[in-house]
């Protein structure tokens, strides 16, 4: 008999984000290409699993990058690392 495991549908991948002095993303590296942020559609901070040994504290951004694609990125506030949701190639369009 087999073993099953649930596969994550939305997997964050590490990425490089260039921020403006005010901390807002200015450009995002997607699939090896730097995409300029055209607009920030939304941003929010999520604090979750604070009751566990592995709490989560993230600053999410919903960005429109050149040439008009919507991407989700977040900054892991504890480590200051940036992640991009979805496969980088898919996000690159």
């Amino acid at each position, binding site marked *: *008999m087999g073993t099953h*495991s*649930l*596969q994550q549908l*939305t*997997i964050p991948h590490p990425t490089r984000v260039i921020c403006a002095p005010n901390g807002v993303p200015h450009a995002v590296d997607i699939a090896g290409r730097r995409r300029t942020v055209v607009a920030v559609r939304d941003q929010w901070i999520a604090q979750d699993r604070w009751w566990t040994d592995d709490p989560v504290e993230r600053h999410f951004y919903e960005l429109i990058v050149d040439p008009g694609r919507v991407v989700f990125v977040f900054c892991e506030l504890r480590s200051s690392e940036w992640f991009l949701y979805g496969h980088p190639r898919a996000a690159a369009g």
Partner: protein
Amino acid sequence: MIIAVALPRFSLHIALLTHRIPVDALAALAPRPDAPQHVGACTPQAAAHGVRAGLRVAEAIARCPGLLLLPPDPDATAAAHERLLVRLEHLGAAVASDTPGEACFVADGLLRLHGGYEVLIRRVHAVLPVGAMGRIGVAPTRFVAQQAAHHAPTQLPYVVTRDEMAAFLAPLSMHALPISAPRAQGFWDVGIRTIGAVAALTRAAALEHLGRNELRAWHIARGEDDEPLLPRTPPQPLRVHVRFDEPVDTLATIEIAARILLEELARTARTRGTSLRGLILRARLIGHSSWMREIALRDATTDVARLTLATLPLLTHIPAPIEELAIDADASGGQIAQQLSLASLARDERTRRTHEVIAHIRAAMGDGAVMRAIPLETWSDLPERQWALIPYSSSPSHTPRE
């Protein structure tokens, strides 16, 4: 020859062990709340005070004021009985059993395997539970072997050859024969008290007393029990499990995992041409502890909806976050007949065709080619925890979101 094993007062013995009461205590099995208020099997020490199975509770306590009435534990008895049968089957025996604590099997095919009766019986003795005072009887017919086991000493088998059968059976109580209570009372009323007296009846007289339906008891009394043993089909265990990367504490996630496992179990059972008779839910909890629940299905089934209905309510009893969920199943049920409907609805037809296409895609590109998205913690702020993918299955227990 047939070898029969008997563990006397098996249910009582299990109840004594469960309640940690010495086997020589003044004790008897209490009646079930919904049954007539008669005591069950009792220890020899209680029997010495005049207690016997079938006595009314008030009378039993009057005869033996210190009598302990133990509630029977049918689950533990069934589990112990199953262990006994499995151990006998491990010797290669095709075991038949109708009563907990009793079993019999044809020995002829095992003699060369084990090197003769002496070795075989020694090995049968070895698999009997320690302290259960197991007894062994050997005889050409099942009934005689069972009676021989009941009258055997603890350490030695009671062997009854075909020539000795009549002499062995003659003094035994006719209540040991498989006859209904009114027939037994009829025998008693006319002074027929022993199996020998039943065997002495002519066929016409036996037919008059027993009727055609119970005439087999007369044949058994004469040692003419030629009905073949019908050994049981050993249970076929199936096991599926799912591991979680980190402990899961949300019921919804556990339920989804259980659904996936049940679908896999049902699919495997259908593939094997069997169905599921019972399930055992096991969860490994954080902190190296575990949780387990048994589910006895009323009918053998491979219907995921019914399996889900029986299983999911129990998951609420899991006391801590789990690291692994496993389901063991007994897949020894027969193949479930599928009732076909006369009219095929258009929706059913579309569903059938969709599943056919999906099957083709999976055959060509693998199981991972078609996935189903299922909600996990849709309220979570973390997108990766909100939804998950599982391999698509044709079971209609979820709304597809492919």
